C-alpha cells in the first residue's frame, strides 16, 4: 500500500447535506440550521441520501432554517426564544441540535449560549454542531456531519460507572429510563468481567446495527444498544466499563468522544467483508470479556462467496472517495480478488484507521485529498471496470463511458457483516451484468 498526498480539490458532497437524512433518521430531534440563505438553500437542494439522481427535496418539519440578515444580526437570546416558539408546535422533541458553522460565527451568533438558553427554557438537551470546526486531520468527508452529530449523541448517553454496574444488573433497580432497554435486550451476564458493548455507527441506514448486534450476541456478548440506534429515548449507557465498537471508518470524532467518557474503543477492522466482520466480532468479543474464534465461521462464509468472488476476480475498481467508507470496501474487494486501482481519501485519519490500512493489500494506492480533475484523467487512462464515484463525478464519468456506483449504494444495500459481504459482491456483479446487457444492444 502506498499513500500519496495530491493536495487537490476533492469532489466531496458538502457535509451539510446530511441534515435532511439525520432529521429523518432521528425523528425526535429538531434540527435548526443557523446561517444565511446559503446554508438553507444547500440543505434544501441536496436531499437526504444523495445519489446521482437526486430525488426531489422534501420538507421535513423537523428541519428549520434560522436565516440571519447580515445587515441586521440578532440580539443575543433572540434566536433561542424563536426556536423555543417553533419547538412548541412539535410533539415528542427530545433534542434540539443547532447546526451553526462559520457563517453563524462571523455574524456574531453565540450558538453555545443560544443552545444553553434553549435547553433551559425547553428543559431538553440542546447542543451545537459546528460543521466547520477544525479537525485534527485536515480534509473533508461528506459524512462529517453524521460524525459530529454522533459525537453529540455519544455525549448525551447516560454515563455508566463501574459502581453502577452491579446496581443495574440487579432487577430491582432496573426501572429507570434506560433500565428497560437493558432488560428487553440481552440479560446482562452474571459474570462481572462481561462488559456491555455499544455499537457506534450505521447512521443513515435504520436497523443497520441489528445484524451485527445479533452476530455479537451469538458470540455471547451483551449488546447494550447502538448509537444512534432508534432515537434519543433509547440511547444506551456509555462510559467507563462500556466497550464501544465502531462500525464506520468515518466516525473518528465520535470515537474520540466515547474514549473521553472512559469507554474502551476497540481498535480493529470495520465490520465490512468476511475478514473484517470476523476480526470485528472476535476483537469486540475479546474486549467485552469473551474469547471466541471466528475462523470457522469466516472460512465457511468465504467459501460460500466462491462463485461471486470468481466474478469479481481481476476486475479493476477505482474509488474516487467521498464518504470515507471506501477504505474498508477496497480492503474487502482487494481480498476478494479485485484489482483496486486507487482509493481516494479526501481525509485520512491514519491513526484511527491503522488497522484498516495495515490490512489493505500491497498493491493498493491511497490518494489523500485527491484532485477530482486528476482523478478523472487517471480514470480515463486506466479505464477501470467499475468506478465507485462521488456524486459530483458520477454523471460526468458515466457520460465518458465509465461504469459507476455510489459508495452510498453499498450502504443502502446493507454492507455490514457476513451477509453484507455477499450483498457488496452481488451489487457489483449486478452492476456489471446490467452494463453488459445494455452494451450488447444494437442501438
Amino acid at each position, binding site marked *: 500500500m502506498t499513500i500519496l498526498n495530491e*493536495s*487537490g*480539490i476533492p*469532489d*466531496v*458532497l*458538502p*457535509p*451539510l*447535506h446530511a441534515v435532511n437524512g439525520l432529521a429523518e433518521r432521528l425523528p425526535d430531534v429538531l434540527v*435548526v440550521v443557523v*446561517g*444565511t*440563505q*446559503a446554508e*438553507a*438553500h*444547500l440543505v*434544501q*437542494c*441536496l436531499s437526504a441520501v*444523495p445519489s*446521482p*439522481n*437526486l430525488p*426531489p*427535496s422534501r*420538507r421535513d*418539519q423537523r*428541519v*428549520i*432554517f*434560522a*436565516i440571519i*440578515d*447580515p*445587515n*441586521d*444580526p*440578532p440580539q443575543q437570546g433572540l*434566536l433561542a426564544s*424563536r426556536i423555543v*416558539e*417553533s419547538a412548541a*408546535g412539535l*410533539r415528542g422533541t427530545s433534542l434540539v441540535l443547532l447546526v451553526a458553522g*462559520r*457563517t453563524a460565527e*462571523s*455574524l456574531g451568533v453565540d450558538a453555545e449560549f443560544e443552545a444553553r438558553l434553549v435547553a433551559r427554557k425547553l428543559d431538553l438537551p440542546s447542543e451545537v454542531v459546528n*460543521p*466547520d470546526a477544525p479537525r485534527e486531520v485536515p480534509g*473533508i468527508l461528506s459524512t462529517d456531519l453524521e460524525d459530529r452529530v454522533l459525537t453529540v449523541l455519544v455525549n448525551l448517553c447516560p454515563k455508566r460507572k463501574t459502581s453502577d454496574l452491579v446496581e443495574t444488573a440487579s432487577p430491582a433497580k432496573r426501572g429507570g429510563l434506560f433500565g428497560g432497554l437493558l432488560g428487553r435486550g440481552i440479560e446482562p451476564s452474571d459474570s462481572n468481567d462481561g462488559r456491555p458493548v455499544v455499537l457506534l455507527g450505521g447512521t443513515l441506514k435504520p436497523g443497520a446495527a441489528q445484524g451485527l448486534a445479533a452476530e455479537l450476541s451469538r458470540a455471547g456478548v451483551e449488546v447494550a444498544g447502538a448509537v444512534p440506534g432508534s432515537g434519543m429515548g433509547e440511547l444506551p449507557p456509555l462510559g467507563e466499563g462500556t466497550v464501544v465498537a465502531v462500525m464506520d471508518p468515518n466516525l473518528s470524532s465520535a470515537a474520540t468522544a466515547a474514549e473521553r467518557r472512559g469507554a474502551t474503543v476497540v481498535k480493529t477492522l470495520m465490520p465490512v467483508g468476511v475478514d473484517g466482520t470476523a476480526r470485528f466480532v472476535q476483537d469486540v468479543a475479546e474486549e467485552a470479556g469473551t474469547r471466541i474464534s471466528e475462523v470457522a465461521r469466516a472460512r465457511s462464509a468465504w467459501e460460500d462467496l466462491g462463485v461471486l468472488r470468481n466474478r469479481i476476480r481481476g476486475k479493476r475498481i477505482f474509488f474516487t472517495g467521498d464518504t470515507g467508507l471506501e477504505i474498508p470496501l477496497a480492503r474487502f474487494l482487494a481480498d476478494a480478488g479485485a484489482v483496486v486501482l486507487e482509493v481516494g481519501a479526501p481525509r485520512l485519519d491514519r491513526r484511527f484507521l491503522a488497522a484498516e490500512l495495515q490490512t489493505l493489500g500491497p498493491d493498493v494506492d491511497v490518494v489523500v*485529498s485527491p484532485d477530482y480533475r486528476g482523478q478523472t484523467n487517471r480514470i480515463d487512462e486506466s479505464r477501470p471496470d467499475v468506478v465507485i464515484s462521488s*456524486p*459530483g463525478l458520477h*454523471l*460526468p464519468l458515466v*457520460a*465518458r463511458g465509465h461504469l459507476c456506483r455510489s459508495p452510498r449504494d453499498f450502504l443502502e444495500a446493507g454492507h455490514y457483516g457476513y451477509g453484507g459481504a455477499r450483498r457488496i459482491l452481488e451489487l457489483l456483479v449486478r452492476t456489471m451484468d446490467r452494463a453488459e446487457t445494455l452494451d450488447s444492444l444494437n442501438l
Partner: protein
Amino acid sequence: MKLLRGVYEGPQSYGILRVAASIRGVHALLRALPGEAYFRTLHGARERTGEMAPVTLSPLREGRDSSMAPGNLVRDLSGVVRRHPKTEIVILVRSEASLLAGETIPATTLPEVEGTGRPPELVKFPWEEPAMRETEAAELALEDLIRARMHDRPERSPYPTVNLFGPPIFGPGAMAEYAEAERLLDMVGVEVNARVPLGANTGDLGRLPRAWANVLLYREVGESATLYLQDEFGMPRVTTPMIGAAGTGAALRAVGELCQLDPKSVQRTIWAELARTAKLPWYARLEPPETFQNRRVAIFGDFTYPLGLGYALAREVGLEVTACGTYLTHLERDFLFHAHTFTEGAFVEDDPDEVAARIEAAKPDLVVGTHLEQGVADSLGVPFLPLCPPVADRPFVGRPLMGYAGSSVLADALDNALRRASVEPAGEAGMQWTDGALQEAAEVPLFLRGRARRLAEERARRQGSGMVTRDIFLESRS
C-alpha cells in the same frame, strides 16, 4: 432574523453561477469554503447531461499559505486559464462565507492563453454582498457580463432580428421556452440573433446590438441587461409575458411592430397558430362554463410565471384568482402593479409558512406554485400544479409553458387537475370541533395544519363521531 422551513431562492453566488453556467465560454472561480461547493453536484443532478459545470473551487482556508494546494486566489485564477484554455471570460464569484470573512480580493490580471497570446477577460462583481439573493444577483451578473463584451458597436442586421432574454439554466423547461419563442418568431419572419443567457456563447454577448429589439421572456433575469442595451444602443424591449394565447399574441404583435412587419401577416400567423397549436382557448370553449364557475385558484412563484399564468387563468380560462404572490421581494412594486389587473389577492412573501397560510386563506380549488407549495395543496386536498420555479422536476424532455405550445401544455395540466378534482367526493362539511381539539390544532405548524385538520376529521368520521375531540385529534396525529 427569520426562522423558515424552506427557501425559495439561493444565495447570490448561486444566481451568478446559474447565469455563468448558461453561457458557453464562461468559467467561474468560486471562492468558498470547501463545504459550500455544491453547484457542480447540483448541475450534474439537475441537467443530467454528463457535462461538468464550468466552476472551479478556490477553497477558503485559514492559516498560512505556504503549500501549493489550491486556496491562493491569484494562483487559482491562473489555474483556471491553464486548465480551460478555451475559456473567454473568467468570473470570480464569492460565497457568503467569503464575503462575510471580509477578505480583500487582490487586483490581478490573468495570464495569456497559450497559442492565442491574449488573456481571457476577468469579470468581478463588486456589488456582491451576503444579503443579496439569487435572482437579483443573476440579473446584475448578466448585465455585467454583457457590458464586459461590448467592445465595439456592431452593425444592425439587415433583416429583422431579436434577442431572447429567457430563464437561466436549471429551469425544468428553460430550453423549451426559448425554442418555442424562436419557433413563433421564425413564423412571423423574425430571426433570433441570440438566446441569452441559456444557449449563448461569449461571442453572442458582444453581438447583441445587431438585433432590432429585445424580447424579455423572463424579466427576473433579463431586466437590467435589456435596460442597459436600451440606454446604450437604443434597443426597444418587449416585456409582455409570452404566457397564454393572449399574452403570446400581444408579444408577437409588439415584435411585429418594432420590426416593421406587415401587421396583417403577423395576424395571419397568429390565427394559423390559434387554429393549429394553441389549445388553451379551445379548451376554454370546449368545457362547459360550470367547470370554471366559482373555482378559485391560488398562484405563487417568481415574477413572470405567476403573472402570466394568473392573467391567462383569470381572463382566458375564467377561474377566480383569489391569491397571487411572489417571493421576489425586490420586485414587490412591479409585481403588485401587474397582479392587481386580475386579482384582489396579490401579495409578496418569502416565508413558505406564511405563503401556505395565505393560500389556505384564499380557499383555492387549485394551487399553482413552486415545489414548496406541494405541502399546502396536499393539506388542503386540492390539486397542485408545480408550474413556477423553483420546481423539483428534472424531466429529460422540457416542455414549454410559454408561447402557443405552452398554452396547450397548460390546457392539459388544467384539464387533468380540474377533472380529477371534480370526481373527488367533497368532504363532509360542518364537522364540529371541541375547544380542546381546537387548542391542540393551533399548536400545529401552519403549513401542516390543514392536513392535520383533515386527518382528524377523517378519523372522527371513521369512528362514527360527529365531533372532533381532543383525543381524536391527538390519536390522528400519532
